[in-house]
Structures are given as structure tokens and as C-alpha cells.
């Protein structure tokens, strides 16, 4: 509803904005355009300096033999694609690729499903629902390192709560080290990441649900449709664009997750939780192989771009199918 009014207002303003220059002389029009450009000039410069240049630099050093020596001397030899090839041939690459894929999919799907269930639940207005919904966002606002630290303590093997509860139920041996046992470390990490992503999914899907006109459900109820039918044939199709956005953003956020892995497991034990993001960091700052690290980081960006392009194609198609 609100977006509709916004676009309408915008249309009007565009029309009137177009009407003005035709009446003003050419020199004044040029001057006006120049003045108007000063509004975006800081942004353009900022983007060039803080996004454009680093990105260019990242691509450049990924094509160079940029190591510790090059960092000191400032001279690096052109190396073609050898950094990318070195990454591909490294045995860690396969492991990190698999982990990145599993981590992303196994995080996004539960995050989304739980977020949707909660959004539906909170859409039923009941006493305290507003307050509870507000509280729900808190984990999302906490610094990631804070959340990571809390979970590190919860998973702690000597006296962490998870260990205490589960071992008292005899489900795991006492002092089970979740974060250093292969397999369990990765599972724990995904568990934490799902917890982190639920608020975001819930908030976006909740606001998506609010845009579905109530009349649709009323009409469906008159026609005698069941709750499931209403969900299947009204909620899901109407929510489709929002679902697309949530999943795409979820993918872009998750593929670059670094902080939480770094604080909980540092990619270990023995690469068992290594993803592209953590491995890229290790290459650059652990092994001083800045060229290889940059190459790996660029690959993450490339994957995100490809997914975003697919999303754009899909969203255009789904928007067309709505009309």
C-alpha cells in the first residue's frame, strides 16, 4: 500500500520535473544540471575510492605474484591466472567449496522455513505480539563477535551449558568438545548461523505478509477454502517476490560469512570448517599469499554476482507473470 502511494507521488513529481526545463533557457539548464551533479559527486568519488579502487586492486593483485616480498618492495610480477590455478589445485579448495555450499544451503533453508513459520505465527495478532516481535530482532543487532562468544561458551567442553544438559541426559559423553570434533564443529557452526539468520528472515517475511490484502482471505473463506488452501493458493503466490528477495539476500550474506566461523572454529579442526571466506583470509593474512587470497576472494564475489543475475532474471519473469 505504502509503496504504491510512493511511486504515484514519484510519477507526479517526475512529470512536473520534466515540465520545468522546457521553459528555462539553455544556459540556465546547463548550470542547473551542474549544480545538481554536485549532490551526487561526493557519492561517486566515495564509490570510486572505497569500492572501485580496492576492487580494481584486488583483481590486479590476483593476477600478480603478490607475496610478502612484493608487499615490502611494492613490485610484483605479472602472473596471469596462476593464482587462480594455484587455488584450484590446492587440496583445500575442494574442501572449502564443499563446505561453502553445504554451509550456505543448510543455513538458508532452515532459516527461511523457521522465519516463515514465525512470521505466520506473529501475523496472528495476540497480546504482546508486538513486543515479542521487537525482542526477536535483538540477536540480529548484536555484534557477530558477541553472539559468537556466547555460543563458544555454550558449546564449551569443560563447563558449557549444552554439554552439561546433553551429557546429563547421556546423549553425549561428558566434556564433549563440539567445536574441535570433526563433523560436529561444522554442524555446530551451521546451528549458530541458523539462529543468527532467523530474525532477518522473520522480519522481512512478516512485512511481506502484511502487504497481502485481508480481503483475499475473506473471499477465500466465503468460498469455503481451508486454511492450508489459503496458504497454498494465496499466501505463497503473493509472497513469492519477497521469498525470492529473502533467499537471494540470504545467499549473499551466507556465502561471505566470516566472523562467526573465525571466532568459533577458525576454520578448524584441520580445515573441517574452512569455507571460501575463511580460506581467502588465511591465504592473505595467514600465509601472506595476497595474490592467491585475492583470487579466492574474487571468486566469492563472482559467485554472488552470478546468483544475483539469476535472481534478476527470475524476478523479472515472476513480475511479468503477475501482470
Amino acid at each position, binding site marked *: 500500500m505504502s509503496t504504491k502511494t510512493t511511486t504515484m507521488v514519484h510519477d507526479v513529481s517526475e512529470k512536473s520535473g520534466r515540465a520545468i526545463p522546457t521553459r528555462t533557457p539553455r544556459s540556465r539548464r546547463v548550470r542547473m544540471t551542474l549544480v545538481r551533479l554536485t549532490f551526487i559527486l561526493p557519492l561517486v568519488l566515495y*564509490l570510486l575510492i*572505497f569500492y572501485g579502487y580496492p576492487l580494481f586492486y584486488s583483481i590486479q593483485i590476483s593476477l600478480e605474484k603478490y607475496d610478502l616480498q612484493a608487499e615490502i618492495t611494492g613490485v610484483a610480477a605479472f602472473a596471469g591466472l596462476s593464482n587462480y590455478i594455484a587455488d584450484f589445485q590446492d587440496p583445500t579448495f575442494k574442501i572449502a567449496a564443499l563446505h561453502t555450499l553445504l554451509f550456505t544451503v543448510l543455513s538458508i533453508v532452515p532459516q527461511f522455513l523457521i522465519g516463515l513459520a514465525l512470521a505466520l505465527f506473529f501475523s*496472528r495478532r495476540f497480546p504482546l505480539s508486538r513486543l515479542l516481535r521487537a525482542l*526477536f*530482532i535483538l540477536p540480529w543487532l548484536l555484534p557477530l563477535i558477541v553472539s559468537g562468544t556466547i555460543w563458544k561458551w555454550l558449546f564449551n567442553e569443560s563447563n558449557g551449558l549444552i554439554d552439561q544438559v546433553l551429557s546429563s541426559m547421556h546423549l553425549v559423553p561428558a566434556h564433549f568438545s563440539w567445536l574441535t570434533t570433526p563433523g560436529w564443529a561444522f554442524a555446530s557452526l551451521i546451528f549458530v548461523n541458523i539462529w543468527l539468520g532467523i530474525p532477518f528472515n522473520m522480519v*522481512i517475511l512478516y512485512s511481506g505478509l502484511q502487504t497481502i490484502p485481508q480481503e483475499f482471505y475473506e473471499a477465500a473463506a466465503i468460498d469455503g477454502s481451508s486454511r492450508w488452501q489459503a496458504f497454498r493458493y494465496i499466501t505463497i503466490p503473493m509472497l513469492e517476490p519477497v521469498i525470492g528477495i529473502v533467499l537471494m539476500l540470504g545467499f549473499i550474506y551466507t556465502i*561471505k560469512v566470516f566472523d562467526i566461523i573465525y571466532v568459533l572454529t577458525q576454520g578448524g579442526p584441520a580445515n573441517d570448517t574452512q569455507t571460501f571466506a575463511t580460506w581467502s583470509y588465511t591465504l592473505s593474512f595467514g600465509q601472506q599469499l595476497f595474490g592467491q587470497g585475492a583470487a579466492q576472494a574474487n571468486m566469492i564475489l563472482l559467485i554472488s554476482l552470478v546468483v544475483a543475475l539469476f535472481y534478476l532474471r527470475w524476478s523479472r519473469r515472476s513480475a511479468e507473470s503477475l501482470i
Partner: protein
Amino acid sequence: MLLNRKAIRTRGATILGIVITFLMLFPVYWMLANSFETTQEMFSNPVPLVPTQVTFEPYLTVWQAQLPHLITTLTVSIGAACVAIVIATPAAYALAHFRLRVTILLVFVLLLAQMIPTVTLATPMFLIFNQFGLLNSTLGLILADSTYAVPFAVLILRAFFLSIPYELVQAAFVDGTGEWGAFFRIVLPLVVPGVITAGVFAFLFAWGDFIYGLTLSTNNTIQPISLSIYTYIGQFSDYWNNAMAVAVLASIPAAILLVLFQRYITAGLTAGALKG
């Protein structure tokens, strides 16, 4: 009878809602509860769900060492928020109301910029900052942390500007006000909520930063709080009550901002995702 059943159902929903929210927030509760425990109690098995003897000992222990890190983070976050607002607000206005040829291109670039992983930017940023002597400096961290927020701030502010009728701005020109004059005197006061939203998010993004703190400070002269927690649990791995106290200190701004600006935060979160 029917009303009665409905009343029971809503009450059931409230109870279920409280239970779910408690489960979700349990780690946050655990952080708070354990930050008031004595070290002795932290080693008891099981650690009590509610501290039996509330103590401020952990806070007293960490306070002095953490204060400089909190001040650093506060300075950096406020700085980054200011950079974001100063750069984003005029640009967002221009992208909303001026029919410039670059509008679509710039919006697209901003969307792409938001996708760039911080890890991708961190390596070149480190090497570039190294050349310009910006490593281990507050200014360097402010600039780096502002990258979290600028694209987001522009997109969110643009949505706010779009909701202001352009006629209002044009009316100002009649009085002979220039573009910038109209912007400051007429438009800006109308989008204060938008500026607050953008500022709150920019602050929170910078406050939560870890990667830039980790990569751009090579000695320990400037250490944001997130890095300080990380160092702390590495050094004193047995004193989890103290670690939780540091974590609580690092969470205070998020809690305060959530209480003060809950409406803005929810709206910003949604607008950032849906309109962007």
C-alpha cells in the same frame, strides 16, 4: 462460547510466543546471567540457571581494560555514521528527485556494492591503507567501516525522499532559494526519520565490525571492542563470566538503539531489503 474459545486461543498464542521468544533469546539471557556470576560458580557443575549470588566482580575486573576499546569503537562508529550520512543524504535526494542520466546506473552500482564480501575488500584495503599510513589509525577504521553503510544508507534514504512530493521543493525555488538551500531548509527537515534510520544502521554496522578491526590494526594501538573480546577469550579462556561481561558491554549500544529506535530499525531492515 465461541468468544471463549477465541480468548483461549489468543492466550495460547501469547504463551507460545513467550516460550519461542525466550528460546530464541536464551543465549542473550545466558550472557547476561553469567556476567553476574562469581568465578567459583562458573566452574560448578551445573552452572546455575539464575546466579545464586549476584556479583559485579566480572565487570569490575574487565572494566578498566575494556574502556579504551569501547571509546575507540564509539568514536569509530559515530565517525562512520557521520561519513555515511554526509555522503548519502544529498546523493539519495538527487537520485530520488533529479532526473539525472546516471540515476539507474548509480542505483545498480549501489546494489552491487552491497554484495561485495568484506573479505574481498579487506585484502586490498589493507595493502592500500598500508601505503597511505592509514593502518592502526582511527581515521582508517572510520573510512573502512563506513563502507558497510554508505550504499545501504543511500538506498534507504532514497526511499524516504521518494515519499516527499517534489512540488514542495519546487515551491522553495519560487522564493529564489538555490538547489542546496532548498535541500537544507525544506527537504532535509522532512526526512529526519530517514537520516536517523540510516545513521542508526551505519552506527550498528560499524560497531559490529570485526574484519576491518582484525586486518587494519596490526599492532594493538587501536583495537575495537569486537577484536578485544576475541583477544580476551583467547587469553583468558577459563574466565567466561568476565568474557560475558565484556560481551554485555559490547552489546549495550545495540540494546539502547533497539529500545529507542525500534520502529526505525524494523522499517529500515524491511525497506533496505524490499525497496533495494
